């Protein structure tokens, strides 16, 4: 079994990754609680760890492997897994309440969906940051265009400067693991989920500098030096932000006047 193909590594299960988020997850695609997210999957898997356009061959093969299932399936046994609707009462009764899963279970009740997405931005809680990055990538993939996502990607890359915080209970560790080492590696799970979002924006917008953002973080990132990478991001993020704004402006998509008028109308009533 390979967890890279499990619900843990899928953007539709926003608040978990291979190393982040113990216990149950929640899948926005199937609107279902994931009781064993490391050992389930489905044909809609959208990997968190790398931008979709560089793992597309593997993803297509995986989708074909699980094509016969309409819902979630067991990654190892290839048996169907029942959908579990979220129940607030159940999680309290079972002492499994998780505020992020609780929010995610209400995602489809929020209109418009991007308000929910924005509400998740700007934190330092590592799980919440992972959720935000996953939501941005999911939104962009659904829309399949840069035009509706530039605002969210601008917001996403500002979060590179937020030092993520993980509680001991937030990370997935094995017996004998040094918890501080796991937390440190969990930061990279988050970082690559965020960076994948920027690269996917580069794909949709055709901006090569964003598409291959990994080529521009040569020093710190190559040796997984967190502080070194942060120093490089301090230079690159303002440049990337300016590029996104310049490109969107050039295409007439950067907060066009008609959209502004609508907002002013709404605000003034």
């Amino acid at each position, binding site marked *: *079994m*390979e*967890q*890279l*193909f499990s619900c843990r590594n899928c953007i539709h299960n926003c608040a978990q990754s291979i190393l982040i988020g113990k216990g149950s997850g929640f899948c926005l695609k199937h609107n279902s609680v994931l009781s064993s997210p*490391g*050992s389930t999957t489905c044909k809609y898997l959208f990997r968190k*760890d*790398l*931008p979709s356009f*560089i*793992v597309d*061959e*593997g993803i297509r*093969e*995986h989708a074909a492997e699980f094509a016969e299932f309409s819902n979630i399936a067991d990654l*190892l046994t290839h048996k169907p897994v029942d959908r579990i609707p979220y129940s607030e009462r159940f999680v309290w009764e079972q002492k499994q309440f998780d505020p992020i899963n609780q929010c995610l279970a209400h995602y489809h009740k929020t209109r418009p969906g991007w308000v929910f997405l924005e509400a998740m931005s700007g934190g330092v809680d590592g799980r919440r940051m992972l959720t935000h990055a996953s939501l941005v990538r999911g939104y962009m993939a659904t829309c399949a265009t840069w035009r509706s996502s530039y605002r969210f990607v601008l917001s996403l890359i500002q979060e590179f400067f937020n030092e993520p915080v993980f509680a001991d209970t937030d990370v997935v560790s*094995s*017996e*004998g693991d040094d918890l501080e080492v796991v937390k440190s*590696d969990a930061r*990279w799970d988050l970082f*690559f989920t965020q960076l994948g979002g920027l*690269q996917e924006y580069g794909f949709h917008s055709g901006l090569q500098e964003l598409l*291959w953002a*990994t*080529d521009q973080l*040569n020093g710190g*990132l*190559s040796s*997984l030096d967190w502080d070194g990478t942060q120093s490089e991001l301090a230079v690159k993020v303002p440049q990337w932000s300016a590029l996104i704004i310049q490109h969107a402006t050039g295409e007439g998509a950067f907060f066009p006047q008609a959209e502004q008028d609508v907002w002013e109308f709404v605000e003034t009533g």
Partner: protein
Amino acid sequence: MITEYPSYYRRDEKDGITPPDLGKESTIVEHIVHARGKRSSFTSVSLDRSKITDFGPQLYRLDAPQLIGDKHHLIEHRSLLESLREIISASTKAEKAQALQAQRYAVRRKEGLIKWTFNTGSIERKDLIQWAFNHVQKYFSRS
């Protein structure tokens, strides 16, 4: 001269080692991050059995001397990390992006790789997976 190898392990299905797809050309980076699918022409092993618990219910131990004796290649963990570092510094675009994650995964799993050198010229493509299944089992024993 007898070369001693550290113990390498693999977790896999109870009914045997998942065969490599000897017909699929992949780089070591593509193999580690599964960019081209779950199977490639390589087989992963690990120096630390506790780091691969999610890879299957059955633990196997690699018979490295027999593997090497039969002219297959064992890319040891340290060599693999050196290769990945070289790829990261020399590559660009997709290969670099994949290699950055491959490095993390290889470190976390204490991974080594087997590069098979079977002569499969006479085997039909459709039979290759089953053929590989039959031929790789002897290099592993249940642990």
